[in-house]
């Protein structure tokens, strides 16, 4: 039987008067890859920040590997890797300086892995350049390496493929599938094909509510062998928009 790695119970979070997340209940098991899908502003990023303890919930509880997200957020961060949607690195450092900084924060002595990752993501030649001169894709690669470098038990990825070239996206996908053996991964994305290819389960959020959480196989079964995109549009009301666009372009 697999161990429970994340448990979310009756989670609510408001920003001002608006619900960012409403009554979320979720269970994720060790070694699972959960894809978070949802339109912009559906609460995906907020959920990831809540799991990591970066934001406090208004009510409800999140437990990560037995740690409470409010009381033990530091312990959770120690075992987690996080790639934020909006990557903000220390631009006055060089790529290698930033990654060494990360290693020291995670108290890793052997930094050889940095060089391997830099080579895999084909940015080894740029390692001594200041991050300020990096492209968005290069910055995201550095953020991904920083999240992987300490071999985290939990990996939280917020739109990690934004700005990545197809080759790097493929490398990243392979790394994720390999990590699955040892880590739990939560993955928010807009690219439905990637979610379909990588994730074991899909959680669909809309307007702060968890609409559905099912396995990929179940989705395909429910939507009668149609693609994930069609299923997603069906349950988030995207079909109506699709019709509108068609009328608009006629």
């Amino acid at each position, binding site marked *: 039987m697999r161990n429970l790695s994340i448990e979310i119970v009756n989670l609510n979070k408001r920003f001002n008067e608006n619900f960012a997340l409403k009554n979320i209940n979720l269970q994720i098991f060790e070694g699972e890859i959960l894809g978070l899908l949802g339109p912009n502003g559906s609460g995906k990023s907020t959920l990831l920040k809540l799991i990591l303890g970066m934001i406090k919930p208004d009510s409800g509880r999140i437990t990560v590997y037995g740690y409470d997200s409010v009381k033990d957020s530091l312990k959770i961060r120690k075992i987690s890797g*996080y790639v934020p949607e909006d990557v*903000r690195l*220390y631009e006055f450092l060089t790529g290698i300086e930033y990654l060494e900084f990360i290693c020291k924060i995670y108290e890793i002595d052997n930094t050889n892995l940095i060089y391997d990752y830099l080579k895999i993501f084909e940015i080894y030649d740029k390692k001594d350049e200041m991050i300020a001169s990096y492209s968005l894709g290069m910055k995201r690669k550095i953020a991904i390496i920083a999240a992987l470098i300490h071999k985290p038990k939990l990996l939280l990825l917020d739109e990690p493929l934004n700005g990545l070239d197809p080759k790097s996206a493929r490398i990243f996908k392979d790394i994720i599938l390999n990590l699955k053996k040892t880590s739990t991964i939560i993955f928010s994305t807009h690219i439905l094909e990637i979610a379909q290819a990588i994730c074991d389960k899909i959680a669909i959020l809309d307007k702060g509510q968890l609409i559905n959480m099912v396995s990929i196989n179940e989705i395909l079964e429910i939507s009668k062998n149609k693609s994930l995109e069609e299923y997603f549009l069906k349950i988030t009301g995207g079909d109506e928009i699709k019709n509108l666009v068609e009328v608009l372009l006629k």
Partner: protein
Amino acid sequence: MKKILLLTIVILKGITRKNSRKGLSSDPKIILFINLVIFLLIFSSVYLALSILKEETLITARSALNELIINIPFFIFIMFILVGILLIFETGESIFDVETINWIPIKPYEYVVSSIISTMYIYSFPLFILTALIIPFLIKFQAFFLILIFILALLSSKFMALLFVEIIKIFLEASFSKIKRIKGKYLINFRLFLIIIISSIFIVITNPSLIQRFLFNTKNIIDITWFLPFNWPSTSLKFYIEENYIGALINILLTIIFCFSLLVLASFLRNKYWVLEKPSIIIEKRKKKDFLNKIMKESKISALIIKDLKAYVRKMELIRTYSPILGLVILSFFISSSYQISLIIPTIINLIISTAAIGYEGRSIINIYYLPISYNEYYKSKFIFIIFISFILSLITILNIYFILYLNLLYLFILFCFIFLISLLTSKIGLTIGLKYPKFEETKLSKMISLKGAYLSLIIGGIIYIFTIFLIRLILNLQINLILFLLLIFTLIFYLLYIVLNKINLNLSKKLLEDVSKI
């Protein structure tokens, strides 16, 4: 023409909004309105004051005024060359801002003219003040045509200076682009050095007594260097006042031709280097371990401190904040015979550095939220960083005092203890302000603390500075045993204050790092 006007408005709005997102100065129209109101106020006050003055006084004033108006265009030229060069370095990474508009169908000369007009508009305040002060005199003397030539000379000097700056900027961009891989350490040190030097010169030339000396004594310089184009506006005024109208006319024409030639050259260069490749700054990693890593066991804290130290020499916003004052202090080593100026280092400069220690992180502060760094470790790293800074600043101060007062070693050591204690307390207060009122907004102008925090640090910095002057003056007049007794009492008081501030700061640090949505 329409394109130039449109582009000027776009650049103007871009600059003002980047500099101040919500402030009054974010609207170009408001800048003009404020300038006009100030102009009218000064103009009417001077005009009224002149009507009270006696005829003899006015005659004496006329010869002084003649000398003054000849020198003003030359002064404006130098001032705007310095302002322009500072602006180039201020924009730092965005030196290649032309990239953002290079896809629009505009001609290089349209861009150059718009860029210069917008800069002239934004920094028009000194011209409004100068004309408001001088024109009432010229009206009183009924020198109406001189008013026209004076305004023309002022505008052409400023235009010429900014065109020079534009050419320097294009050359810098082109050469940086050619180098491609710049040795980062050299570039960073060079930039730091240049900003401090230019800031120092700027502070010196904007010093009121020096301006006065400069404005009334440069006539000879202009006489000797009449052949240099940037002196032509001043020379035309000189000739006109001396009633050599042909000479004045020739100089006006020469000025116009020279401005036009500069514009053609700037447009040609901008056209040649329109799309440039952004250079990469390379900082090769040293093989050996950092000094702090060697002496500190806690790698997390040493990593945070090293990051902060690197930010203070590499981040433009930070360099810009402390370099003008640092420049002034460095100059004081050479020109001042009073130790009071050097006391700015452990007090005001120290306060600026420590208040900025939190907000400088900008939006990158998010790293601290998702990495396993406790509020305690974060605070500890900032605290050790400011101890380090305080120690260095105290050493610089004591060195300066030594060269001014030539005290014996014992006195010097005791004085160092006092200064170090004050410096530590100042930085601790600075950290409190930084933690309480941080601002993580990223704009071109430094906004590392909120306005409330900035006012507070201004008041506290002033109080600490005055207190320090008083204290050091007292110490210098006391017997050694009394000084030692005073040191003991001070150490105790400082220790108590220290503990209280430590508690406050830890709480503030905890609050700050509790919830990312609060920042």
